[in-house]
């Protein structure tokens, strides 16, 4: 088919929403893995019918599901995420030492050119990789081997590795982000890592500009300009022009610079989207109005996008993996909420309408553009 396939992970299963290029009439498929939390689904750009889903719950742990036909049929593949060697400890919320323990996979990042290769970001924070389509997973232990790892502490959602960016032209260069440790950069395919948090300021830390300890919520970038990174932090929207070595603030005129999700327009590298949330204590939009904000200037100057979004009595959240863009023309933008709505805009954010209104709380939204 030609069109889009929206992959939605929720607290109680997964859903696949499909439409043609007009993105007006939608088919809803699901729930898949009903009753399970699905933190993320991701499709391979090398083979769009190859999908991966992270299925988990507190009773039965982690399952990894794989589809080879675009989501019609699924197969449970390998679910063993074993830390390398003695996993040691990190810090718990109260500052006590806590043994490293796998809880779930938060995010899958399929390789750009091999559908069998996927990186997985997990809780407690670590990076794993499969080279055999998900049957076996191996830790890239250099990340957790960084000397700062014993001091990493979880954010409210857990000590999670939620963002994986592999350089589109140089796969050996990678960025990951961990809540609440910050950004780390590797230039040797994950063997060794360097903190990439210079310029971040986090008031909850004893040393607000420390190398490590920042609660980075999400990173995004445009593939044509891989050294320009955008960040939604616990507070502050940030930008780096040098591959994460240095960051500067671009919150500008946003009504709140707290939030979780951030993404970049598919065809305009300086057009960025965020969804401001009131505060770290009030996880809902300012003034009860769900507004996606768009900057066409790479930050600082932000325009509220409201047409079709609820503008009163709206107290949902948009979680870190719940915003995505397609690469149709014009660019489509998608936002999932904890209230179970998935909103779509087929005109780069100017107008919105709900694809679905009553799903379980949405944890993640990804979009595949099918040609």
């Amino acid at each position, binding site marked *: 088919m030609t069109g889009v396939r929206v992959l939605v992970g929720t607290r109680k299963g997964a859903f696949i929403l499909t439409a043609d290029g007009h993105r007006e009439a939608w088919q809803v498929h699901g729930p898949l893995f009903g009753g399970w939390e699905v933190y993320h689904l991701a499709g391979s750009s090398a083979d769009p019918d190859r999908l991966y889903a992270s299925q988990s*719950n*507190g*009773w*039965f742990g982690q*399952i990894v599901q794989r589809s080879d036909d675009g989501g019609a049929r699924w197969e449970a593949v390998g*679910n063993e995420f074993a830390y390398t060697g003695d996993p040691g400890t990190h810090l718990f919320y109260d500052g006590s030492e806590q043994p490293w323990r796998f809880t779930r996979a938060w995010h899958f990042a399929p390789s750009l050119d091999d559908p069998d290769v996927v990186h997985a970001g997990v809780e407690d924070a670590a990076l794993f990789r499969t080279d055999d389509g998900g049957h076996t997973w191996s830790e890239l232990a250099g990340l957790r081997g960084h000397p700062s790892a014993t001091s990493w502490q979880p954010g409210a959602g857990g000590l999670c590795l939620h963002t994986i960016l592999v350089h589109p032209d140089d796969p050996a260069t990678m960025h990951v982000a961990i809540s609440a440790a910050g950004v780390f950069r590797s230039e040797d395919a994950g063997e060794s890592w360097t903190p990439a948090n210079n310029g971040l300021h986090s008031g909850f830390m004893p040393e607000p500009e420390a190398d490590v300890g920042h609660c980075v919520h999400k990173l995004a970038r445009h593939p044509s300009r891989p050294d320009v990174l955008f960040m939604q932090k616990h507070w502050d929207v940030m930008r780096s022009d040098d591959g994460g070595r240095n960051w500067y603030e671009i919150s500008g005129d946003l009504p709140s610079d707290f939030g979780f999700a951030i993404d970049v327009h598919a065809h305009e590298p300086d057009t960025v989207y965020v969804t401001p949330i009131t505060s770290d204590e009030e996880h809902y939009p300012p003034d009860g109005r769900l507004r996606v904000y768009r900057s066409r200037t790479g930050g600082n100057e932000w325009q509220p996008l409201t047409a079709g979004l609820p503008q009163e009595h709206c107290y949902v959240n948009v979680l870190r993996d719940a915003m995505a863009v397609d690469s149709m023309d014009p660019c489509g933008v998608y936002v999932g909420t904890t209230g179970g709505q998935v909103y779509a805009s087929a005109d780069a954010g100017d107008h919105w309408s709900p694809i679905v209104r009553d799903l379980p709380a949405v944890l993640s939204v990804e979009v595949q553009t099918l040609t």
Partner: protein
Amino acid sequence: MIRIQLPQQLRSLAGIAGEAGVEVPPPVTLGAALDALEATYPTLSGTIRDHGTTRRRSFIRIFADGEDLSDAPPHTPLPRAIVEGRQPLRVVGAIAGG
């Protein structure tokens, strides 16, 4: 043949409609029964016991002929009613969450 009763989500995962049936050579112990279950239905590996440690997952309980074997060591013999197939070994998800 040992009968094992599983929660619905694990039955769905294993692709079975009713009880699981597994052959367990003697001596029929708790650990041997779970080993046989995971060997017969590999997708259940890690869902009842953690990989590596084989420690029971926190929200799983295991009952046999009225006994709570949740914290019993793996070499614990299963009751005769289970061994003879008159009753199922019950793997139960704890009441938690929503």
